[in-house]
């Protein structure tokens, strides 16, 4: 089992889709959102993923394939 802290940055066309829910469902990883800022046209989410290493890897590749930028959680994108 592994744990990964990541930040997703969403392009406008993905904002209203249940990406994180599907990530959990499809790849059997537990998603735990810590901070987020989502508006009508953009957004980011900082979350923790827990699961088997290969599931996390596969899940992140799937998310990136949707055009969502995946970065390690570090600093942050927005002062809340």
């Amino acid at each position, binding site marked *: 089992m592994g*744990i990964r*802290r990541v930040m997703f*940055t969403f392009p406008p066309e993905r904002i209203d889709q249940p990406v994180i829910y599907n990530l959990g469902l499809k790849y059997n990883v537990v998603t735990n959102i*810590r*901070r987020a*800022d989502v508006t009508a046209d*953009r957004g*980011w989410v*900082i979350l*923790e993923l827990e699961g088997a290493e290969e599931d996390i890897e596969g899940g992140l590749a799937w998310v990136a394939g949707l055009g969502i*930028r995946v*970065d*390690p*959680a*570090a*600093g*942050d*994108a*927005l*002062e*809340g």
Partner: protein
Amino acid sequence: MSYALSLRCRKCGGEYPLQAQNLCDFCFGPLDVAYDYKAMAASLTRDKIARGPVSMWRYADLLPIAGEPVDLGTGFTPLTRADNLGRLLGLEQLYIKNDCLNPTWSFKDRAVAVAVTKARELGFTTIACASTGNLAASVAAHAVKAGLKSYVFFPSDIEQGKIVSTAIHNPTLVAVQGSYDKVNHLCHRLVEAYGWGFININLRPYYAEGSKTLGYEIAEQLGWRSPDRILAPSASGLLFTRIWKGLNELSMLGLIGPVNTHMHCVQAAGSSPIVNAFENGTLHVLPVEPQTIAKSIAVGNPADGNYALKAARESGGTAASVSDDEIIEGIRLLAETEGIFSEPAGGVVIGALRKMAKSGIIRSQDVTVACITGSGLKTQEIVSDSVRPVTIEPSLQSFESMVCVPNVTAASD
């Protein structure tokens, strides 16, 4: 004496001991060193600082280290009046903070000196970093001095001079095929996998504090006052925010008056997420894919981008970007007027300075400090077309026929 108390989360205020950790366990917000400023203020005076070493360690009381520093002789670099360049740009009080003159030829020595000192205090035997080049050289050099092992990771396409000036200190050199952001992603994985002190990841709160000394020095060298304007280049945005923090700390401690400095954040147009956000009037710093000759500052997803944006706004400053051609022109202009050979990050600063002087953002009377943060000796290839010698035979006749010397009467004997 250290007045550092703890690490504190910038988001939720959660507190942690002074250990190797950069994110809050609870909200994943960034951690910063918290100090006992009251005790600090009671013990610090201008005189006490001025009597200290002629290096960044004169400000040791404002830094989060307890014991002997790992010292290569970093800091207290010249703040020189740039009258030639100033005349050309119509600026009467222009200064260059020449941070090329650090032990490994960039301002990174300030940040690394603090982080490596802390790494040694915390008992690390191996340190590492993700670097665009300057950080790598500094980490490798400090590791040697501190008797630690080092691993440095950098994008495989960085300038040869940066690689050689790192390799000479014999670290484990790892050239990663990919952008800096990819290097950074990889290193975040390695932090979890190995128990190393990553200078700009798990040791980032200490690393960040080292950069404050650039701000302290500017104020002290101006006779204990903050200038009207500072221009500094941004990659992750950390240096920029820490210059601002440094000035505000001095003011809070009563060592200088109120800070009325306008902070100007400059980036290469091919990698300008902070400038984009500033210009769009948004708080979101959206990541970009960098494409610029200014490789040292080609960071697409700046960890402290939002804080840099805030500092620019809060100070009444601006953010500006310049093209690759303007960067080269900036490097040449500085070299040809002030005798200082900068790397592209400094070309960005001078290019932006020129634009701001022209557009009237900077007025002729403003006390303006341009931060030149790294030396051109490591990035020679981008200006190698400057080399056009006249080749002659070793005779007076050959010289006179090949080299045109204007308006000179030959000596009579």
